[in-house]
């Protein structure tokens, strides 16, 4: 086995790791040694674009798929992620609403789920910082309090949004987004392609176009193709990180790297799995894995739906917060500006498409487990909660009322949920003690005090808002408070 020692070892290069690393490098000394272990490789934006244009890079067939990385006991529920440099920033749609203040107190206010050990006010300045780093486009007026303007102007509302906003005001806003409304850094302005998983014009924030320079810092050593298996611990201190070359199965060929401090920034499946492989005996480790759920509704309307300047033009908060959350899930509405048509002469663009995304309460029966194969986590997921179904029922019943500002002719509500919202969350939750959580409010493991467990795995409850901005803000906060 190789043996090296670092001041900090970071696992992963996605949002959680990169924002943590950014703050750490700002605050630490010039002579620190940082090791970053990345499971995948640099699958660049240029190569992704080329692949979509029919010219795949030579290494395409070697890329690891998310399906093969896990043992999913419930294939009807896919868990989607990108294992390469930059993680899910490669495939996200760059929707960056903040959580609302009440999302941090769902148990105190509504008797559901678990409160966060931090308040909205404690994370607010880090939201601002993350938004500045990502170059978020957003409006001046939002339903959540903000102490600073967004760095880029908001995207232009569509004709449909303008009617909705006229009635709902700050509860119908131009979506805050990492899809730039104007050229920003290396990024171009978004032009509503509606293929954001790989943006044709590189308009959305990614780790590659926004924070790749961190990994070129002389203090940082980035190693690709290393799957972290477990941590070696001694007297409740993490001593080393054990990994293997990605794609190999020979466990006699592991590598070990020693570190003073370790930060796990993998997703909620692998953070939990690494801890379980390391002997973490907290019964909550791995428990609660979940995702939001969402469904679409299409509408025929007696007006042309045009003029929006981004892929998702707006967020609606009319069904987001209220006493109804004691019984049914909160819902965030998205206006999807897809270039789709209504197939009727003279009415080609007289339609609208909305998505309704629901919060979830983590259920401890849905779990990540360590199986016989040390390299593949087992995912046991029985399904989403009835709280979500109650939320859908509430929203569907109010559909005509919600969209009363529009000249609606007919509404077609999907009778099914989308398979995934692509948000893997809540398997290593944060809280006030090891009895109710695995990590503390600084994202430090309750038992292993030199171990940070970053990312969406720490979410104690799952709001209807997209999580990546909050993941990034939490990492900034954690590094700022501890270094």
């Amino acid at each position: 086995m190789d043996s090296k020692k670092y001041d900090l070892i970071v696992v992963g290069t996605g949002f959680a790791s990169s924002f943590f690393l950014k703050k750490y490098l700002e605050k630490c000394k010039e002579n620190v040694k940082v090791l970053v272990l990345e499971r995948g490789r640099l699958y660049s934006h240029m190569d992704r674009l080329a692949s979509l244009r029919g010219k795949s890079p030579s290494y395409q067939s070697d890329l690891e798929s998310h399906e093969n990385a896990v043992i999913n006991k419930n294939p009807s529920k896919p868990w989607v992620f990108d294992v390469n440099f930059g993680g899910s920033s490669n495939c996200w749609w760059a929707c960056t609403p903040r959580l609302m203040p009440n999302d941090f107190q769902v148990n105190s206010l509504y008797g559901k789920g678990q409160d966060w050990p931090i308040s909205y006010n404690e994370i607010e300045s880090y939201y601002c910082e993350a938004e500045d780093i990502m170059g978020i486009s957003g409006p001046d007026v939002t339903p959540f309090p903000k102490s600073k303007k967004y760095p880029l102007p908001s995207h232009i509302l569509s004709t449909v949004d303008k009617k909705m906003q006229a009635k709902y005001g700050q509860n119908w806003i131009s979506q805050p987004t990492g899809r730039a409304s104007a050229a920003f850094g290396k990024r171009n302005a978004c032009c509503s392609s509606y293929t954001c998983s790989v943006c044709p014009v590189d308009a959305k924030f990614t780790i590659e176009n926004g924070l790749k320079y961190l990994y070129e810092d002389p203090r940082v050593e980035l190693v690709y193709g290393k799957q972290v298996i477990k941590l070696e611990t001694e007297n409740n201190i993490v001593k080393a990180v054990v990994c293997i070359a990605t794609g190999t199965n020979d466990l006699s060929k592991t590598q070990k790297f020693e570190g003073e401090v370790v930060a796990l920034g993998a997703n909620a499946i692998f953070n939990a799995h690494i801890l379980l492989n390391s002997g973490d005996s907290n019964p909550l480790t791995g428990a609660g894995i979940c995702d939001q759920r969402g469904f679409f509704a299409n509408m025929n309307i007696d007006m042309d739906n045009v003029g929006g300047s981004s892929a998702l033009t707006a967020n609606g908060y009319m069904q987001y917060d209220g006493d109804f959350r004691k019984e049914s899930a909160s819902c965030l509405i998205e206006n999807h500006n897809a270039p789709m048509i209504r197939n009727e002469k003279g009415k080609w663009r007289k339609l609208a498409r909305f998505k309704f995304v629901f919060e979830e309460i983590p259920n401890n029966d849905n779990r990540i487990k360590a199986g016989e194969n040390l390299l593949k986590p087992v995912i046991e997921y029985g399904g989403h909660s009835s709280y979500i179904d109650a939320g859908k029922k509430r929203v569907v019943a109010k559909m005509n009322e919600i969209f009363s500002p529009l000249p609606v002719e007919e509404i077609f509500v999907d009778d099914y949920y989308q398979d995934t919202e692509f948000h893997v969350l809540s398997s290593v939750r944060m809280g006030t003690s090891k009895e109710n959580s695995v990590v503390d409010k600084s994202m430090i493991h309750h038992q292993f005090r030199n171990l940070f467990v970053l990312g969406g795995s720490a979410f104690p409850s799952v709001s209807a808002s997209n999580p990546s901005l909050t993941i990034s803000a939490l990492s900034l906060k954690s590094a700022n408070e501890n270094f």
Partner: protein
Amino acid sequence: MTNRRNFIKLSIAATALAPVAYLGYQAMLPFQKTIQNILIKDLAGLKVKSEDIDKFAAQAAQENPWGFSGSKVKFISFYNSIHNQWLPLPFKYKYEQYRADIVGRFLLSTDFFINKMNESKDITYIGIIYSPYKTPCSNPFSAAYYPS
């Protein structure tokens, strides 16, 4: 007499099976033909050149810009053969969505939306099937085309 009975039985069987055979034939049509049939019918009121429809259908059947699976292609072709306005068939809305996807992709690949949906103007296929990866920033409903 026996021959006559057999003839009648065969005739009845043939009559009963004819629609089934027809539907089977329709479902087995090349997807290109299904695309052509849909576009000809749904764009009847627009000034579209038949050769443009033929060219698009040939290209689209090969490139499959919708990413339709094989079973979805068969479903669309079969449904197209039995579909009509007043028959309450299952999956009708799903089929109509796919159908709108086909018509929409064709119109997005023409100058129709660039001309602000002017139905009195001739419509020309631009020769490239609409894709943001081939022609970025060409969403014709966006702010770039409808500045406020």
